[in-house]
Each structure stands twice: as C-alpha cells, then as structure tokens.
C-alpha cells in the first residue's frame, strides 16, 4: 500500500494536486499540495495551483539559469505562473490548452505542433510531451518537498488518480496514459465530473442517500476556464441500497470562463472606441480582461451591486497618465454574460454549427456557438427524454450565482416545474482534485463507487464489396466494435467474420469514434463511414510476423476482433486467428512522430 493517495486535476488552464495519508484514509480529508514553480525569471515560489502553460523561450529572452529549479539545472523551458504571464506578451512561445490538443480532431497528439505559432519548428513539442512536462513538474516538486527524505514518500510510489474530461475518447485517454508513462508514473484515470461528484459524496459521506432518490438523474455541470463538460449520473436501486451509474457524457466543449471574461472585455473595448474614440492595444485588453473578471465576480455574486469601475493602468512608466477607466453595469453584465452565454432556450434548441466564428483564431476547434444552455439542451436531448432532478455545479464559473441560477431556471423551464435540486457542499475550484483523491480511497473499498460504461462507441473501417467502378472509391463501411455503455473493465468478441490479416505485411484499419450513436451494438455495420456523427481517430495497425512455415508471407489469415475496455476507459483491440493455432495480435495506434507538413497544419486549422 502506498503512503499517500494523490489526486491530480490536470485542468485546461490550471492544475491542482491534492493528497491524503493512505493510512488515515477513512477519516482523512484531502489536502492541497502547494506547488513550487517559476513565478518570474530567476524566481520561484509555491502556489496553490500550477497554471497549465509551458514557455519555450529564446536564449535572448531570459537570463542564464533563470528557469532553473532545485532539481533541474540549465532548464530551457518552464511551466506554471511565469509561463502564463508570458502567454499574452509572447504568444508564439507559450503552449496553452495542451489538454484540448490531446483530443483535437484531425491533429495527431503525438506530433510536434505546439506552440502552434512558434517560429522555430525545432522548439515545438507534441501535446503528449507538454502533458508529460506538467506531470514531471508535479513529480519533481513533490519529491523536492514531501518526498524529499523518504524513499517511500516519493511521488512515483504513491497511488495516483489523474482526471481527464469525460469527453476524452479512448485515444485521448491512451495519450494521457502515455504522457504519464513517459513521466515514469503509474496512474489511474478518472473522469472530471465524476471526480467532482466523488467530492460531493465525500462531503456527505454519512447521509448522501437522504439527498437523492432512486431513479433520479443527476447532472454534473462543470464549467472551467477553458472547457465545459457535462455528465449524467443515474441513481439506481440495487436490492434496497442506492447505487450510482454514470450514464452519459457530453462532447468536449471548448467554452469556459476565459471566453466569458474576453467577451466582456471586448464589449467594453468596443464601447470605449465608440464613445471616446479610444483604441486599446493587446496589453490593455489583457488588463481590461483581468478587470472584467473581478467585476464579473462582484456583479454575479450580489444582485444589488452597483456599476463596477474598470481600470486599466498605463503600460509605460506613466501609470497615472496612461490610465483608462470606465465602468460596467449590472445590465451590461447581464447582457454579455447571462444572456450571451446562458440564454433561456428550449430543450429542442441546439448550438449553431457555423464554422466562421470570431473565436476561431488557431487550430483548436473552438465552439461556434457560445450558448452553454444550448449545448446543454443538445446534450440532454441526445440522451433520452428524461431530465435531471438534481444538479451539481463545478468549475470556477459556477461560483457566480447569476450564472448558476440562470442554468437552474432554464432546466426548471424544461421540466415544467421549479424543483431542480442543487447539490451543495463542494469547492468549485478544488472539488476535482479532492474528489480524485477520494476516489483513490474509494478504490481501496472505503466508500461507494460510481459505475461507468464507455461514453463513446467505436468502429473500424471495412471495405464493402461492390463492383469496381473506375475513379470511384468504394464506400467504406464501419463495424461497431465497442457499443455505447460497454462496461469498463470488460472485454468482448465482435460477432463478425470477414476480416483478414496478411502475413508479413502491416494491415491498417481506419478507426472511428462517436459520442452520439448510443443505439449501435457490437457487430453492427454502418454502410457508410463518411458521416457527421463519426469522427476520425488515429488508424490502427497490426503486423503478423513471418514465423510459421504453414503460413508463408502473403497468406491471408482470417481473424475476428476482440475489444478490451480497461477500468480507466482506454481501449485495446485484438485480432484472434479463426481456427488453426488461435494466435492473437494486438492492434496498435498508428502514431506518427514526424513534423506535420504545412498541408496538415492547414487542414487542422480549417
């Protein structure tokens, strides 16, 4: 047994680590681990969280040894507070939102593409490597303090639970596991909304069963700095005792608090230009965004708050002379945030899918429609007619009463009665880290565990047999290998024969995933894989060694497929030889290490 249980909230914009002493597991309350990090050049300090930014400077930009840490001499990059500080001043040198790149469509997460705008390709690293760097930093910071004197207290010896967005598909989870492995860590993955819910379970360890009822659906609504994540948890009755099952998760929605602060700031900047003819530069916009965030917190917390002053200090040494000041009223906040991001809408609404929106500035697939409530309506509609009876909020944005009450009002409108229960008692910023920690405890059998199934269905491409027509490539069909809801920690054989591997050659399978197709069963075939509700994942391949005299190179070996879904939601596909010697080969993800060509870059950007 490890000495500590560690929970890591690997957030899109901030990373938090909490831990508890494994021996006191039942009574212990998770504690936050303060993370030492570079806070400015040549300066390091402990902070409650590690901003998820990675700065790759030129030699000219920082002094020698200015990014060194006690465990790392001659560092030429840094993660954390100083990296975040540079994100706006040196946008081409700083990686942000690495996590969202792990699951970005049409981008290979193991290729060296970040920072997206870096001028020197040799400095670019892959999203997987960036994630690895964050994890290494946590490991070394821990080993420099708590783990410094005792071999048993080393980070890598502990029971570590790492959270991922519920929307992460099997490939993104696999990439996260690879990053952890490269950082020499063994981790367990847990979905973030589940982690938040575990934190609530821990807060009500004694009496949570009195607060929810069998048959109820609970919505976990997690709105962080960069992303929004929904999950549905069903309360079931198992022989008189309540049980919990995670029944649905939403898509990866790239929409969060940062977008809201920016929207407010750009609204104010536009007004300044219109009314005073004042044009703000990037630096002033950054200052204004910060001022807007503070104003938002006041206005959203107190419905009677008056207009809030927004001050942007001059950039040069003339701080008073360069100061720009304006104010934002309750009505303006209401308009840009509450109505802009949380408009009242019908359950039948769905977000606009326009691809030409203002937020689309670089390769990530930012949401075209900022209406969180419409994304929520689409999510709930996709998963049946039943509406949630309770809601658990998580993420920094949900500290704002004005915004959460609008969400509650919207759902009550859909329910036709005002009885949505808001589950309380968790810390919106730290619940994921604490809950992850608590989950480590749960895994040791100390409390109730949420059951979960695959939130995606998966497909491999098979060529359909049709007569060859010149210049027309035959449509590719998709064979379902993992159905929505397949229980984690189980395996199944796919009832489909007609696949073959050629001995001595690499056989490649195109691979797809879907978060929307909940009705398909393993073995079902979709006649055309080129459809909106399937998205491409890295291809899978298998190579049969030439080892057997009876099956010389070039022989076609008929195989069936077996899917193994791990406890943590990663997926393995195996080819099983039909008849004969019953050999097995694992299908591996085809990950390219090469630089992306310009062409690929553009494709992802479009």
């Amino acid at each position: 047994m490890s000495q500590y249980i560690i929970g890591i909230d690997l957030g899109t914009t901030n990373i938090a680590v909490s831990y508890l002493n494994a021996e006191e597991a039942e009574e212990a309350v998770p504690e936050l681990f303060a993370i030492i990090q570079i806070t400015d050049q040549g300066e390091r300090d402990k902070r409650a969280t590690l901003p998820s930014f990675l700065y790759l400077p030129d030699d000219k930009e920082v002094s020698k040894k200015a990014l060194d840490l006690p465990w790392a001499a001659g560092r030429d990059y840094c993660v954390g507070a100083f990296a975040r500080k540079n994100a706006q001043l040196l946008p081409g040198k700083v990686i942000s939102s690495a996590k969202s790149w792990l699951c970005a469509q049409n981008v290979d997460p193991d290729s060296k593409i970040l920072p997206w705008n870096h001028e020197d390709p040799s400095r670019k690293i892959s999203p997987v490597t960036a994630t690895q760097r964050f994890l290494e930093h946590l490991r070394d910071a821990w080993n420099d303090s708590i783990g410094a004197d005792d071999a048993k207290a080393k980070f890598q010896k502990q029971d570590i639970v790492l959270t991922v967005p519920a929307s992460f598909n099997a490939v993104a989870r696999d990439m996260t596991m690879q990053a952890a492995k490269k950082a020499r860590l063994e981790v367990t993955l847990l979905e973030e909304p589940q982690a938040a819910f575990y934190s609530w379970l821990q807060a009500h360890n004694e009496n949570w069963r009195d607060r929810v009822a069998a048959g109820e659906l609970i919505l976990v609504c997690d709105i962080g700095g960069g992303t929004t994540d929904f999950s549905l948890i069903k309360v079931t009755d198992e022989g008189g005792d309540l049980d919990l099952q995670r029944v649905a998760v939403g898509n990866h929605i790239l929409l969060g608090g940062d977008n809201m602060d920016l929207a407010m700031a750009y609204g104010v900047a536009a007004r300044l230009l219109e009314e005073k003819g004042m044009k703000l530069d990037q630096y002033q916009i950054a200052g204004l965004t910060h001022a807007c965030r503070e104003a938002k917190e006041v206005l959203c917390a107190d419905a009677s708050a008056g207009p809030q002053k927004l001050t942007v200090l001059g950039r040069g040494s003339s701080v008073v002379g360069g100061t720009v000041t304006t104010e934002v009223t309750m009505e303006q906040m209401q308009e840009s945030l509450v109505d802009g991001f949380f408009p009242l809408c019908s359950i039948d609404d769905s977000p606009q899918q326009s691809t030409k929106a203002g937020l689309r500035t670089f390769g990530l697939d930012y949401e075209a429609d900022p209406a969180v409530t419409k994304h929520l309506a689409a999510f709930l509609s996709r998963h049946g007619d039943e509406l949630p009876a309770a809601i658990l909020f998580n993420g920094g944005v949900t500290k704002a009463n004005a915004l959460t009450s609008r969400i509650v009002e919207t759902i009550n409108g859909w329910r036709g009665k005002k009885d949505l229960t808001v589950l309380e008692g968790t810390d919106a910023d730290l619940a994921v880290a604490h809950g992850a920690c608590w989950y480590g405890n749960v895994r040791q059998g100390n409390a109730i565990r949420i059951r979960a199934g695959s939130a995606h269905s998966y497909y491999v491409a098979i060529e359909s047999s049709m007569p060859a027509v010149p210049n027309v490539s035959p449509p590719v069909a998709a064979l379902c290998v993992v159905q929505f809801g397949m229980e984690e920690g189980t395996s199944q054989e796919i009832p489909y024969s007609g696949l073959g591997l050629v001995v001595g050659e690499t056989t490649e399978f195109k691979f797809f995933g879907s978060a929307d197709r909940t009705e398909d069963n393993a073995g079902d075939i979709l006649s055309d894989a080129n459809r909106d509700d399937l998205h491409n994942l890295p291809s899978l391949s298998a190579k049969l060694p030439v080892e057997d005299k009876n099956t010389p190179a070039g022989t076609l070996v008929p195989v069936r497929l077996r899917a193994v879904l791990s406890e943590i939601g990663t997926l393995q596909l195996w080819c099983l030889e039909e008849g004969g010697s019953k050999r097995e080969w694992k299908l591996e993800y085809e990950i390219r290490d090469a630089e992306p060509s310009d062409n690929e870059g553009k494709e992802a950007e479009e």
Partner: protein
Amino acid sequence: MRISDAFQAFFRVLGGADLVDKATLPPPSEPTTPEPDPETEKKLVEAEAKLAEAVASLTAAEDAQTEAAEVQFRDGAVYGLLLLQREGRLIDFLQENVDDYEDEQIGAAVRQIHRDCGKVLQENFAMTAIVDESENEKTVVSEDFDPSAIKLTGKVPSEPPYKGFLRHKGWRATKVHFPTRSGKIDPTVVQAAEVEFI
C-alpha cells in the same frame, strides 16, 4: 586571557560546541600551575603567534560575512520594492509627476494601485495591527511592553497602569515571505525596461 580560554573562544566561534569539548585545555586532572621551562615558553610563543594569525583570518571571514549580510539586506530591500512595482506599479506611481493631472484621473489609477499593493502587503508581509483596537479609544498598555513596538506620548505616567488613548494602532510585518531567487539576476533592477518588436 588564558590560553585555554582563548582556544575555547576560537573553537566556539569556528566550529560549535562539539569541538570545544575536545579542544578544552588543559584536562581537569593535570596540574594547574606547571613549572615554567624554556621549551614550554617557546611552544607558548609559537602557539600565540598561530592564534593571532587565526584570529586575524577569523576577523576577515567575519567581515566578509557581515558584508554578505549587508548585500543580502540591500538586495532584499530592493526586492521588496520590485514586488510592489511588479504587482502594484507603486514605483511608477511615485516616480510620476502627478501635478498636471486632475484628481479624478489620479483617483482612478490609485484605486487600482492601492488594491494591488495591498495584496503584496498581505501575501508577502502579512501586515497586521500591533494593537488591534479602535483608534482614539481608551487602551491599557501592559507592564512589559516593548518600547520599539509601542511608543508612549504625552504625560506618560511613571508607574503602571499605563492607561491612555490609542492614537495609532501600529503595523507589523508578521512574516517576510520572498520567493527564492536564483540564476543570473541583476538585484538592482526594480522593473526591467520593455522593448516590443512588431
């Protein structure tokens, strides 16, 4: 100064208590007044010369240490200013000529500077009142008060109880937390000049 005392003092300064025990001369069992003989006299002179040399180098080391402490103190003071400038723009504000600005313009900037500098005082110095009571109200100063922390003014009574009016509650930095610095950093820089390339 007896030689054993001198050695003891020397070793106490250099190496701490452990060394003193081993170096204490003479051992308690030996005669306290040995007969003077030329050989011993010679050794004594040699030992005293060595001692003088050691004391000189010790003094030099102490001077170097004092100087290092002074440098550290000086750098720390500048660093405190750096934090107030970086987080709260205080140096910019104090260095600026504000004569030509309207009070409204100054007020707008000050409100922000005030808030940001206040955070530095809290986070890096944990500034708290020395006497946490209402000003201009009656207060009693305890008998064993520290005159560097509480200043008595007016008609100060010669004997306790010291009953008076609190005119200023005082401020104390209850901690000094500075981040750790390393690398090649010019300690006199309070704000780096910025050059943007476009």
